[in-house]
Protein backbone atom coordinates (compact mmCIF):
# COMPACT_ATOMS: atom_id res chain seq x y z
CA UNK A 1 0.00 0.00 0.00
CA UNK A 2 1.28 3.41 -0.93
CA UNK A 3 0.48 5.83 1.89
CA UNK A 4 1.17 8.99 -0.11
CA UNK A 5 -1.38 7.93 -2.71
CA UNK A 6 -3.95 7.04 -0.08
CA UNK A 7 -3.55 10.31 1.80
CA UNK A 8 -3.85 12.34 -1.41
CA UNK A 9 -6.98 10.38 -2.35
CA UNK A 10 -8.39 11.24 1.09
CA UNK A 11 -7.58 14.93 0.58
CA UNK A 12 -9.61 14.83 -2.65
CA UNK A 13 -12.51 13.06 -0.95
CA UNK A 14 -12.55 15.56 1.94
CA UNK A 15 -12.26 18.59 -0.36
CA UNK A 16 -15.15 17.43 -2.52
CA UNK A 17 -17.29 16.70 0.53
CA UNK A 18 -16.60 20.20 1.87
CA UNK A 19 -17.72 21.59 -1.50
CA UNK A 20 -20.86 19.47 -1.28
CA UNK A 21 -21.55 20.69 2.27
CA UNK A 22 -21.55 24.33 1.19
CA UNK A 23 -23.39 23.56 -2.06
CA UNK A 24 -26.13 21.77 -0.12
CA UNK A 25 -26.98 25.03 1.61
CA UNK A 26 -27.55 26.60 -1.82
CA UNK A 27 -29.70 23.72 -3.07
CA UNK A 28 -33.20 24.39 -1.81
CA UNK A 29 -35.35 24.27 -4.95
CA UNK A 30 -35.45 22.48 -8.28
CA UNK A 31 -33.93 25.37 -10.19
CA UNK A 32 -30.92 25.33 -7.88
CA UNK A 33 -30.76 21.55 -8.01
CA UNK A 34 -30.75 21.27 -11.82
CA UNK A 35 -28.92 24.45 -12.85
CA UNK A 36 -27.18 25.92 -9.79
CA UNK A 37 -29.76 28.70 -10.05
CA UNK A 38 -28.44 29.62 -13.50
CA UNK A 39 -25.97 31.87 -11.75
CA UNK A 40 -22.59 30.53 -12.82
CA UNK A 41 -20.24 33.00 -14.49
CA UNK A 42 -19.07 32.33 -18.04
CA UNK A 43 -15.53 31.32 -17.09
CA UNK A 44 -16.74 29.16 -14.21
CA UNK A 45 -19.07 27.24 -16.47
CA UNK A 46 -16.37 27.04 -19.15
CA UNK A 47 -13.89 25.47 -16.74
CA UNK A 48 -16.64 23.18 -15.43
CA UNK A 49 -17.49 22.06 -18.98
CA UNK A 50 -13.88 21.10 -19.56
CA UNK A 51 -13.84 19.34 -16.18
CA UNK A 52 -17.01 17.54 -17.16
CA UNK A 53 -15.62 16.46 -20.50
CA UNK A 54 -11.98 15.45 -19.83
CA UNK A 55 -12.50 12.00 -18.37
CA UNK A 56 -9.87 9.85 -16.67
CA UNK A 57 -10.06 7.39 -19.53
CA UNK A 58 -9.41 10.19 -21.99
CA UNK A 59 -6.51 11.65 -19.95
CA UNK A 60 -4.80 8.30 -19.38
CA UNK A 61 -5.96 6.90 -22.71
CA UNK A 62 -4.65 9.81 -24.80
CA UNK A 63 -1.21 9.83 -23.19
CA UNK A 64 -1.05 6.04 -23.53
CA UNK A 65 -2.43 6.14 -27.07
CA UNK A 66 0.20 8.61 -28.26
CA UNK A 67 2.96 6.74 -26.42
CA UNK A 68 2.01 3.43 -28.01
CA UNK A 69 0.64 4.32 -31.45
CA UNK A 70 2.32 7.64 -32.28
CA UNK A 71 0.45 9.66 -34.86
CA UNK A 72 -2.69 7.51 -34.64
CA UNK A 73 -2.98 8.53 -30.98
CA UNK A 74 -3.78 12.04 -32.22
CA UNK A 75 -7.06 10.73 -33.58
CA UNK A 76 -8.22 10.17 -30.00
CA UNK A 77 -8.17 13.90 -29.37
CA UNK A 78 -8.40 15.96 -32.58
CA UNK A 79 -12.08 15.17 -33.19
CA UNK A 80 -12.93 15.84 -29.56
CA UNK A 81 -11.16 19.21 -29.76
CA UNK A 82 -12.92 20.26 -32.97
CA UNK A 83 -16.25 19.06 -31.59
CA UNK A 84 -16.24 22.15 -29.37
CA UNK A 85 -16.42 24.32 -32.46
CA UNK A 86 -19.55 22.37 -33.43
CA UNK A 87 -20.99 23.07 -29.98
CA UNK A 88 -19.99 26.74 -30.23
CA UNK A 89 -21.22 27.48 -33.74
CA UNK A 90 -24.36 25.37 -33.88
CA UNK A 91 -25.70 24.41 -30.47
CA UNK A 92 -24.70 26.43 -27.40
CA UNK A 93 -26.68 29.67 -27.76
CA UNK A 94 -29.98 28.32 -29.15
CA UNK A 95 -29.85 25.53 -26.56
CA UNK A 96 -29.53 28.09 -23.77
CA UNK A 97 -32.39 30.13 -25.19
CA UNK A 98 -34.83 27.25 -25.57
CA UNK A 99 -34.03 24.85 -22.75
CA UNK A 100 -34.71 25.01 -19.06
CA UNK A 101 -33.37 21.93 -17.26
CA UNK A 102 -32.95 19.15 -19.81
CA UNK A 103 -32.36 18.49 -23.49
CA UNK A 104 -35.99 17.34 -23.78
CA UNK A 105 -37.07 20.83 -22.62
CA UNK A 106 -35.33 22.31 -25.59
CA UNK A 107 -36.97 20.02 -28.13
CA UNK A 108 -40.42 20.26 -26.51
CA UNK A 109 -40.14 24.05 -26.54
CA UNK A 110 -40.90 23.63 -30.22
CA UNK A 111 -42.89 20.38 -30.35
CA UNK A 112 -45.20 20.31 -27.38
CA UNK A 113 -45.85 16.58 -27.23
CA UNK A 114 -45.32 14.08 -24.46
CA UNK A 115 -44.01 11.57 -27.00
CA UNK A 116 -41.24 13.94 -27.99
CA UNK A 117 -40.33 14.52 -24.37
CA UNK A 118 -40.46 10.80 -23.67
CA UNK A 119 -38.12 9.78 -26.48
CA UNK A 120 -35.72 12.64 -25.81
CA UNK A 121 -35.55 11.60 -22.16
CA UNK A 122 -35.16 7.94 -23.13
CA UNK A 123 -32.15 8.85 -25.28
CA UNK A 124 -30.64 10.91 -22.47
CA UNK A 125 -31.07 8.08 -19.97
CA UNK A 126 -29.69 5.47 -22.40
CA UNK A 127 -26.63 7.55 -23.25
CA UNK A 128 -26.05 8.47 -19.60
CA UNK A 129 -26.23 4.87 -18.40
CA UNK A 130 -23.89 3.55 -21.12
CA UNK A 131 -21.44 6.38 -20.51
CA UNK A 132 -21.58 5.95 -16.75
CA UNK A 133 -21.02 2.20 -16.94
CA UNK A 134 -18.00 2.78 -19.19
CA UNK A 135 -16.62 5.36 -16.74
CA UNK A 136 -17.35 3.21 -13.67
CA UNK A 137 -15.76 0.04 -15.04
CA UNK A 138 -12.75 2.12 -16.11
CA UNK A 139 -12.64 3.69 -12.65
CA UNK A 140 -12.75 0.30 -10.91
CA UNK A 141 -9.87 -1.01 -13.00
CA UNK A 142 -7.92 2.21 -12.55
CA UNK A 143 -8.22 2.47 -8.78
CA UNK A 144 -7.15 -1.15 -8.55
CA UNK A 145 -4.04 -0.36 -10.59
CA UNK A 146 -3.23 2.87 -8.76
CA UNK A 147 -3.72 1.95 -5.13
CA UNK A 148 -4.65 -1.72 -5.10
CA UNK A 149 -8.23 -1.49 -3.80
CA UNK A 150 -10.15 -4.36 -5.47
CA UNK A 151 -12.75 -3.72 -8.18
CA UNK A 152 -16.00 -4.02 -6.22
CA UNK A 153 -15.04 -1.78 -3.25
CA UNK A 154 -13.59 0.80 -5.69
CA UNK A 155 -16.86 0.85 -7.54
CA UNK A 156 -18.83 1.27 -4.32
CA UNK A 157 -16.58 4.14 -3.14
CA UNK A 158 -16.93 6.03 -6.43
CA UNK A 159 -20.65 5.25 -6.55
CA UNK A 160 -21.34 6.51 -3.04
CA UNK A 161 -19.30 9.69 -3.54
CA UNK A 162 -20.96 10.66 -6.82
CA UNK A 163 -24.39 10.00 -5.34
CA UNK A 164 -23.61 12.17 -2.30
CA UNK A 165 -22.44 15.11 -4.44
CA UNK A 166 -25.54 15.09 -6.61
CA UNK A 167 -28.07 14.11 -3.95
CA UNK A 168 -27.11 16.90 -1.53
CA UNK A 169 -25.34 19.47 -3.65
CA UNK A 170 -27.09 19.11 -7.03
CA UNK A 171 -25.63 21.14 -9.87
CA UNK A 172 -23.74 23.52 -7.56
CA UNK A 173 -21.67 20.73 -6.00
CA UNK A 174 -21.22 19.02 -9.38
CA UNK A 175 -20.01 22.26 -10.99
CA UNK A 176 -17.50 23.09 -8.28
CA UNK A 177 -16.17 19.52 -8.12
CA UNK A 178 -15.67 19.78 -11.88
CA UNK A 179 -13.97 23.18 -11.63
CA UNK A 180 -11.62 21.94 -8.89
CA UNK A 181 -10.80 18.84 -10.88
CA UNK A 182 -10.14 20.83 -14.07
CA UNK A 183 -7.55 22.97 -12.25
CA UNK A 184 -5.93 19.89 -10.69
CA UNK A 185 -5.77 18.12 -14.04
CA UNK A 186 -4.35 21.18 -15.83
CA UNK A 187 -1.85 21.77 -13.02
CA UNK A 188 -0.67 18.15 -12.93
CA UNK A 189 -0.40 17.98 -16.71
CA UNK A 190 1.50 21.27 -16.82
CA UNK A 191 4.10 20.06 -14.29
CA UNK A 192 4.64 16.85 -16.28
CA UNK A 193 4.76 18.83 -19.53
CA UNK A 194 7.53 21.13 -18.25
CA UNK A 195 9.47 18.19 -16.82
CA UNK A 196 9.25 16.31 -20.14
CA UNK A 197 10.36 19.36 -22.12
CA UNK A 198 13.28 19.95 -19.75
CA UNK A 199 14.54 16.42 -20.52
CA UNK A 200 14.82 17.52 -24.15
CA UNK A 201 16.27 20.99 -23.46
CA UNK A 202 12.95 22.56 -24.49
CA UNK A 203 13.64 21.68 -28.09
CA UNK A 204 10.55 20.37 -29.89
CA UNK A 205 12.48 19.06 -32.89
CA UNK A 206 14.75 17.17 -30.52
CA UNK A 207 11.72 15.40 -29.03
CA UNK A 208 10.47 14.34 -32.46
CA UNK A 209 14.01 13.15 -33.31
CA UNK A 210 14.21 11.07 -30.10
CA UNK A 211 10.84 9.33 -30.42
CA UNK A 212 11.75 8.35 -33.96
CA UNK A 213 14.32 5.94 -32.60
CA UNK A 214 12.76 5.20 -29.19
CA UNK A 215 9.99 2.78 -30.16
CA UNK A 216 9.92 -0.60 -31.91
CA UNK A 217 8.15 1.12 -34.81
CA UNK A 218 11.21 3.22 -35.63
CA UNK A 219 10.47 5.94 -38.16
CA UNK A 220 6.97 4.55 -38.70
CA UNK A 221 6.05 5.80 -35.20
CA UNK A 222 5.57 9.32 -36.52
CA UNK A 223 3.56 8.16 -39.53
CA UNK A 224 -0.17 7.42 -39.60
CA UNK A 225 -1.33 3.82 -39.79
CA UNK A 226 0.04 2.00 -36.73
CA UNK A 227 -3.38 1.48 -35.23
CA UNK A 228 -5.89 2.31 -37.94
CA UNK A 229 -5.02 -0.20 -40.65
CA UNK A 230 -8.26 0.15 -42.53
CA UNK A 231 -8.88 3.62 -43.99
CA UNK A 232 -12.47 3.78 -42.76
CA UNK A 233 -11.40 3.19 -39.13
CA UNK A 234 -9.70 6.56 -38.87
CA UNK A 235 -12.42 8.37 -40.79
CA UNK A 236 -15.36 7.00 -38.82
CA UNK A 237 -13.56 7.49 -35.49
CA UNK A 238 -12.89 11.14 -36.32
CA UNK A 239 -16.39 11.70 -37.64
CA UNK A 240 -17.97 10.24 -34.49
CA UNK A 241 -15.77 12.27 -32.15
CA UNK A 242 -16.44 15.47 -34.09
CA UNK A 243 -20.23 15.13 -33.82
CA UNK A 244 -20.54 13.25 -30.52
CA UNK A 245 -19.86 15.99 -27.98
CA UNK A 246 -22.65 18.24 -29.23
CA UNK A 247 -25.15 15.50 -28.35
CA UNK A 248 -23.80 14.42 -24.95
CA UNK A 249 -26.52 15.23 -22.39
CA UNK A 250 -24.13 15.79 -19.48
CA UNK A 251 -22.20 18.37 -21.48
CA UNK A 252 -25.34 20.04 -22.86
CA UNK A 253 -27.07 20.50 -19.49
CA UNK A 254 -24.10 22.59 -18.39
CA UNK A 255 -25.36 25.38 -20.64
CA UNK A 256 -28.45 25.79 -18.46
CA UNK A 257 -26.27 26.91 -15.54
CA UNK A 258 -25.64 30.37 -17.01
CA UNK A 259 -28.02 33.28 -17.28
CA UNK A 260 -28.17 33.92 -21.04
CA UNK A 261 -26.89 33.04 -24.50
CA UNK A 262 -24.04 35.51 -24.26
CA UNK A 263 -22.70 33.81 -21.14
CA UNK A 264 -23.21 30.40 -22.79
CA UNK A 265 -21.02 31.66 -25.63
CA UNK A 266 -18.34 32.73 -23.17
CA UNK A 267 -18.51 29.32 -21.45
CA UNK A 268 -17.93 27.34 -24.60
CA UNK A 269 -15.07 29.64 -25.61
CA UNK A 270 -13.33 29.16 -22.27
CA UNK A 271 -13.92 25.38 -22.42
CA UNK A 272 -12.39 25.20 -25.89
CA UNK A 273 -9.25 27.02 -24.76
CA UNK A 274 -8.83 24.89 -21.64
CA UNK A 275 -9.35 21.62 -23.51
CA UNK A 276 -7.04 22.59 -26.38
CA UNK A 277 -4.21 23.59 -24.04
CA UNK A 278 -4.65 20.34 -22.14
CA UNK A 279 -4.49 18.31 -25.37
CA UNK A 280 -1.32 20.05 -26.60
CA UNK A 281 0.40 19.15 -23.35
CA UNK A 282 -0.97 15.59 -23.43
CA UNK A 283 0.65 14.99 -26.84
CA UNK A 284 4.05 15.74 -25.37
CA UNK A 285 3.37 13.60 -22.31
CA UNK A 286 2.74 10.73 -24.74
CA UNK A 287 6.07 11.42 -26.48
CA UNK A 288 7.78 11.67 -23.11
CA UNK A 289 6.40 8.30 -22.06
CA UNK A 290 7.48 6.70 -25.35
CA UNK A 291 11.01 8.09 -25.12
CA UNK A 292 11.65 7.91 -21.36
CA UNK A 293 9.77 4.76 -20.29
CA UNK A 294 9.72 2.69 -23.46
CA UNK A 295 6.97 0.77 -25.23
CA UNK A 296 7.67 -2.60 -23.56
CA UNK A 297 7.43 -1.27 -20.02
CA UNK A 298 4.25 0.73 -20.77
CA UNK A 299 2.57 -2.37 -22.22
CA UNK A 300 3.79 -4.51 -19.33
CA UNK A 301 1.96 -2.27 -16.84
CA UNK A 302 -1.24 -2.06 -18.89
CA UNK A 303 -1.74 -3.30 -22.46
CA UNK A 304 -3.89 -0.27 -23.37
CA UNK A 305 -1.22 2.15 -22.13
CA UNK A 306 -3.39 3.55 -19.34
CA UNK A 307 -0.46 3.59 -16.90
CA UNK A 308 1.79 5.63 -19.20
CA UNK A 309 0.97 8.99 -17.55
CA UNK A 310 1.35 7.81 -13.92
CA UNK A 311 4.51 5.89 -14.80
CA UNK A 312 5.91 9.01 -16.48
CA UNK A 313 5.16 10.96 -13.32
CA UNK A 314 7.10 8.41 -11.25
CA UNK A 315 10.16 8.60 -13.51
CA UNK A 316 10.18 12.40 -13.65
CA UNK A 317 9.09 13.36 -10.16
CA UNK A 318 9.34 10.31 -7.94
CA UNK A 319 6.68 8.79 -5.72
CA UNK A 320 5.04 12.05 -4.76
CA UNK A 321 4.34 13.13 -8.33
CA UNK A 322 3.06 9.62 -9.07
CA UNK A 323 0.70 9.90 -6.12
CA UNK A 324 -0.40 13.36 -7.23
CA UNK A 325 -1.19 12.24 -10.79
CA UNK A 326 -3.02 9.19 -9.45
CA UNK A 327 -5.09 11.47 -7.20
CA UNK A 328 -5.80 13.79 -10.14
CA UNK A 329 -7.06 10.78 -12.14
CA UNK A 330 -9.28 9.88 -9.19
CA UNK A 331 -10.70 13.42 -8.94
CA UNK A 332 -11.31 13.29 -12.67
CA UNK A 333 -13.37 10.12 -12.37
CA UNK A 334 -15.49 11.64 -9.59
CA UNK A 335 -16.16 14.89 -11.46
CA UNK A 336 -17.18 13.20 -14.69
CA UNK A 337 -19.49 10.60 -13.14
CA UNK A 338 -21.20 13.25 -11.01
CA UNK A 339 -22.10 15.18 -14.16
CA UNK A 340 -23.53 12.07 -15.77
CA UNK A 341 -25.60 11.19 -12.68
CA UNK A 342 -27.13 14.64 -12.80
CA UNK A 343 -28.05 14.42 -16.49
CA UNK A 344 -29.63 10.99 -16.03
CA UNK A 345 -31.46 12.03 -12.87
CA UNK A 346 -32.87 15.20 -14.45
CA UNK A 347 -34.24 13.20 -17.38
CA UNK A 348 -35.94 10.80 -14.96
CA UNK A 349 -37.33 13.37 -12.52
CA UNK A 350 -37.97 16.40 -14.71
CA UNK A 351 -39.02 14.67 -17.96
CA UNK A 352 -40.50 11.29 -17.04
CA UNK A 353 -41.96 12.14 -13.63
CA UNK A 354 -42.93 15.79 -13.79
CA UNK A 355 -43.29 16.27 -17.55
CA UNK A 356 -45.14 13.10 -18.52
CA UNK A 357 -46.51 11.40 -15.40
CA UNK A 358 -47.66 14.61 -13.70
CA UNK A 359 -48.27 16.61 -16.90
CA UNK A 360 -45.91 19.30 -15.60
CA UNK A 361 -48.07 19.94 -12.54
CA UNK A 362 -45.98 18.38 -9.79
CA UNK A 363 -45.45 20.73 -6.86
CA UNK A 364 -42.03 22.20 -6.17
CA UNK A 365 -41.63 19.87 -3.20
CA UNK A 366 -42.60 16.76 -5.20
CA UNK A 367 -40.21 17.72 -7.98
CA UNK A 368 -37.25 18.16 -5.66
CA UNK A 369 -38.06 14.86 -3.99
CA UNK A 370 -38.28 13.12 -7.37
CA UNK A 371 -34.94 14.63 -8.42
CA UNK A 372 -33.31 13.33 -5.24
CA UNK A 373 -34.82 9.85 -5.59
CA UNK A 374 -33.67 9.75 -9.23
CA UNK A 375 -30.15 10.73 -8.24
CA UNK A 376 -29.99 7.62 -6.07
CA UNK A 377 -31.74 5.40 -8.61
CA UNK A 378 -29.50 6.24 -11.58
CA UNK A 379 -26.18 5.41 -9.83
CA UNK A 380 -27.67 2.20 -8.37
CA UNK A 381 -28.69 1.00 -11.85
CA UNK A 382 -25.29 1.91 -13.29
CA UNK A 383 -23.38 0.22 -10.45
CA UNK A 384 -25.40 -2.99 -10.75
CA UNK A 385 -24.71 -3.14 -14.49
CA UNK A 386 -21.03 -2.37 -13.87
CA UNK A 387 -20.75 -5.33 -11.47
CA UNK A 388 -21.85 -7.70 -14.22
CA UNK A 389 -19.75 -6.35 -17.06
CA UNK A 390 -16.43 -5.99 -15.26
CA UNK A 391 -14.79 -8.75 -17.28
CA UNK A 392 -16.03 -7.57 -20.66
CA UNK A 393 -14.15 -5.25 -22.94
CA UNK A 394 -16.01 -2.06 -22.09
CA UNK A 395 -13.95 0.34 -24.16
CA UNK A 396 -16.69 0.16 -26.77
CA UNK A 397 -19.38 1.23 -24.27
CA UNK A 398 -17.87 4.71 -24.13
CA UNK A 399 -17.72 4.97 -27.89
CA UNK A 400 -21.24 3.55 -28.08
CA UNK A 401 -22.45 6.40 -25.86
CA UNK A 402 -20.68 8.94 -28.04
CA UNK A 403 -22.06 7.40 -31.23
CA UNK A 404 -25.54 7.43 -29.72
CA UNK A 405 -25.10 11.09 -28.86
CA UNK A 406 -24.00 11.84 -32.41
CA UNK A 407 -26.78 9.90 -34.12
CA UNK A 408 -29.76 9.94 -31.73
CA UNK A 409 -29.37 13.42 -30.22
CA UNK A 410 -27.47 15.74 -32.53
CA UNK A 411 -29.73 15.41 -35.61
CA UNK A 412 -32.89 16.23 -33.65
CA UNK A 413 -31.12 19.16 -31.93
CA UNK A 414 -29.87 20.66 -35.20
CA UNK A 415 -33.14 20.15 -37.06
CA UNK A 416 -35.16 21.61 -34.19
CA UNK A 417 -33.06 24.75 -34.30
CA UNK A 418 -32.45 25.21 -38.00
CA UNK A 419 -35.15 23.54 -40.09
CA UNK A 420 -38.40 25.45 -40.35
CA UNK A 421 -40.42 22.55 -41.78
CA UNK A 422 -39.29 20.03 -39.17
CA UNK A 423 -42.28 18.58 -37.27
CA UNK A 424 -43.28 16.32 -34.38
CA UNK A 425 -43.30 13.13 -36.44
CA UNK A 426 -39.87 14.03 -37.81
CA UNK A 427 -38.47 14.67 -34.35
CA UNK A 428 -39.69 11.34 -33.03
CA UNK A 429 -38.52 9.43 -36.11
CA UNK A 430 -35.07 10.98 -35.94
CA UNK A 431 -34.65 9.99 -32.28
CA UNK A 432 -35.93 6.42 -32.70
CA UNK A 433 -33.94 5.74 -35.87
CA UNK A 434 -30.79 7.19 -34.31
CA UNK A 435 -31.15 5.13 -31.14
CA UNK A 436 -31.99 1.77 -32.68
CA UNK A 437 -29.75 1.95 -35.74
CA UNK A 438 -26.76 2.66 -33.49
CA UNK A 439 -27.54 -0.17 -31.11
CA UNK A 440 -28.18 -2.64 -33.94
CA UNK A 441 -25.03 -1.70 -35.83
CA UNK A 442 -22.93 -1.97 -32.68
CA UNK A 443 -24.39 -5.40 -31.90
CA UNK A 444 -23.54 -6.53 -35.43
CA UNK A 445 -20.02 -5.09 -35.28
CA UNK A 446 -16.90 -6.88 -34.09
CA UNK A 447 -17.05 -5.16 -30.70
CA UNK A 448 -20.66 -6.18 -30.20
CA UNK A 449 -19.82 -9.79 -30.95
CA UNK A 450 -17.15 -9.79 -28.27
CA UNK A 451 -14.10 -9.53 -30.52
CA UNK A 452 -11.36 -7.13 -29.58
Amino acid at each position, binding site marked *: MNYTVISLFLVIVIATLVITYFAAKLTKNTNQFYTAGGELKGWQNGVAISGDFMSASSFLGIVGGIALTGFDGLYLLLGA*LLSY*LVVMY*LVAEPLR*NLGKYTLADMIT*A*RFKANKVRGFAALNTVTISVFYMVAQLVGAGVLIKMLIGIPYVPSLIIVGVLMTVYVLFGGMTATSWVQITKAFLLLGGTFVLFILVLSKFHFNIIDIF*EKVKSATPFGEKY*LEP*GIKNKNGLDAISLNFGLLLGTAGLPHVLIRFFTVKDAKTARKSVTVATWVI*SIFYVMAIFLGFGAAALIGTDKIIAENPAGNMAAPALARILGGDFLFAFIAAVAFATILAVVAGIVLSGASAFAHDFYNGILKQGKASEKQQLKAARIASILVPVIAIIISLFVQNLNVAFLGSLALTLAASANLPVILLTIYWRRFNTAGAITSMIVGLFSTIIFVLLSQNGQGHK
Partner: protein
Amino acid sequence: MDVSKLITKEVIRTMRDEEKYEKIAQMPGFQQLLSKKKKFILTSTLTIFILFMALPVLTSYSTILNHSIVGPITWAWFWAFMLFVMTWLFCVLYTKKANSFDHLSETIKEGANKELAVKEAKV
Protein backbone atom coordinates in the same frame (compact mmCIF):
# COMPACT_ATOMS: atom_id res chain seq x y z
CA MET B 1 -33.35 39.86 -26.59
CA ASP B 2 -30.21 38.84 -28.39
CA VAL B 3 -29.81 37.68 -31.93
CA SER B 4 -29.82 33.95 -31.40
CA LYS B 5 -33.11 34.29 -29.58
CA LEU B 6 -34.51 36.19 -32.53
CA ILE B 7 -33.33 33.50 -34.91
CA THR B 8 -34.75 30.77 -32.76
CA LYS B 9 -38.03 32.62 -32.69
CA GLU B 10 -37.92 33.03 -36.43
CA VAL B 11 -38.21 29.28 -36.57
CA ILE B 12 -40.43 28.72 -33.60
CA ARG B 13 -43.44 30.88 -34.15
CA THR B 14 -45.50 29.36 -31.40
CA MET B 15 -43.63 31.14 -28.65
CA ARG B 16 -44.77 34.02 -26.48
CA ASP B 17 -44.14 37.67 -27.29
CA GLU B 18 -45.69 37.06 -30.71
CA GLU B 19 -46.77 40.61 -31.48
CA LYS B 20 -43.44 42.12 -30.62
CA TYR B 21 -41.68 39.44 -32.59
CA GLU B 22 -43.78 40.16 -35.70
CA LYS B 23 -42.94 43.83 -35.34
CA ILE B 24 -39.24 43.13 -35.10
CA ALA B 25 -39.32 40.61 -37.95
CA GLN B 26 -40.68 43.33 -40.25
CA MET B 27 -37.96 45.82 -39.37
CA PRO B 28 -35.71 46.63 -42.33
CA GLY B 29 -32.44 45.26 -40.94
CA PHE B 30 -33.81 42.10 -39.44
CA GLN B 31 -34.00 39.76 -42.42
CA GLN B 32 -30.52 40.85 -43.52
CA LEU B 33 -29.21 40.14 -40.04
CA LEU B 34 -30.75 36.68 -40.13
CA SER B 35 -29.32 35.74 -43.49
CA LYS B 36 -25.95 37.24 -42.54
CA LYS B 37 -25.79 35.15 -39.42
CA LYS B 38 -26.93 31.98 -41.19
CA LYS B 39 -24.37 32.50 -43.93
CA PHE B 40 -21.59 33.01 -41.39
CA ILE B 41 -22.51 29.87 -39.45
CA LEU B 42 -22.84 27.75 -42.58
CA THR B 43 -19.58 28.78 -44.24
CA SER B 44 -17.62 28.47 -40.98
CA THR B 45 -19.02 25.04 -40.16
CA LEU B 46 -18.29 23.75 -43.66
CA THR B 47 -14.74 25.13 -43.59
CA ILE B 48 -14.07 23.52 -40.21
CA PHE B 49 -15.52 20.22 -41.38
CA ILE B 50 -13.50 20.09 -44.60
CA LEU B 51 -10.18 21.15 -43.04
CA PHE B 52 -10.64 18.58 -40.30
CA MET B 53 -11.93 15.56 -42.22
CA ALA B 54 -9.35 16.02 -44.97
CA LEU B 55 -6.63 14.94 -42.53
CA PRO B 56 -7.91 11.39 -41.79
CA VAL B 57 -8.95 10.98 -45.43
CA LEU B 58 -5.46 11.91 -46.64
CA THR B 59 -3.62 9.88 -44.00
CA SER B 60 -5.82 6.84 -44.66
CA TYR B 61 -5.64 6.76 -48.44
CA SER B 62 -2.33 8.37 -49.30
CA THR B 63 1.19 8.87 -47.96
CA ILE B 64 1.44 12.40 -49.30
CA LEU B 65 1.55 13.91 -45.79
CA ASN B 66 4.48 11.74 -44.68
CA HIS B 67 7.02 14.08 -46.28
CA SER B 68 9.16 16.06 -43.90
CA ILE B 69 8.91 19.81 -43.36
CA VAL B 70 11.55 20.45 -40.73
CA GLY B 71 13.69 17.46 -39.83
CA PRO B 72 11.50 14.80 -38.23
CA ILE B 73 8.28 16.87 -38.38
CA THR B 74 6.06 15.79 -41.28
CA TRP B 75 3.15 17.53 -43.00
CA ALA B 76 0.72 15.27 -41.13
CA TRP B 77 1.96 16.60 -37.76
CA PHE B 78 2.03 20.13 -39.09
CA TRP B 79 -1.60 19.75 -40.21
CA ALA B 80 -2.59 18.36 -36.81
CA PHE B 81 -1.01 21.33 -35.02
CA MET B 82 -2.60 23.69 -37.52
CA LEU B 83 -5.97 22.26 -36.49
CA PHE B 84 -5.25 23.57 -32.98
CA VAL B 85 -4.40 26.99 -34.40
CA MET B 86 -7.55 26.84 -36.53
CA THR B 87 -9.63 26.06 -33.44
CA TRP B 88 -8.25 29.11 -31.65
CA LEU B 89 -8.82 31.34 -34.68
CA PHE B 90 -12.42 30.17 -35.14
CA CYS B 91 -12.99 30.65 -31.42
CA VAL B 92 -11.91 34.30 -31.62
CA LEU B 93 -13.78 34.83 -34.89
CA TYR B 94 -17.02 33.49 -33.45
CA THR B 95 -16.87 35.72 -30.38
CA LYS B 96 -16.20 38.78 -32.53
CA LYS B 97 -18.96 38.01 -35.01
CA ALA B 98 -21.49 37.09 -32.35
CA ASN B 99 -20.83 40.34 -30.51
CA SER B 100 -21.33 42.37 -33.67
CA PHE B 101 -24.58 40.50 -34.37
CA ASP B 102 -25.70 41.26 -30.82
CA HIS B 103 -24.99 44.91 -31.41
CA LEU B 104 -27.00 44.91 -34.66
CA SER B 105 -29.98 43.15 -33.10
CA GLU B 106 -29.88 45.64 -30.25
CA THR B 107 -30.21 48.49 -32.74
CA ILE B 108 -33.10 46.76 -34.54
CA LYS B 109 -34.85 46.10 -31.25
CA GLU B 110 -34.58 49.73 -30.21
CA GLY B 111 -36.03 50.76 -33.56
CA ALA B 112 -38.96 48.39 -33.12
CA ASN B 113 -39.63 49.62 -29.59
CA LYS B 114 -39.67 53.22 -30.79
CA GLU B 115 -42.10 52.38 -33.58
CA LEU B 116 -44.40 50.56 -31.17
CA ALA B 117 -44.29 53.52 -28.81
CA VAL B 118 -45.19 55.95 -31.61
CA LYS B 119 -48.17 53.80 -32.64
CA GLU B 120 -49.43 53.53 -29.09
CA ALA B 121 -49.17 57.29 -28.69
CA LYS B 122 -51.29 57.78 -31.83
CA VAL B 123 -53.98 55.41 -30.55
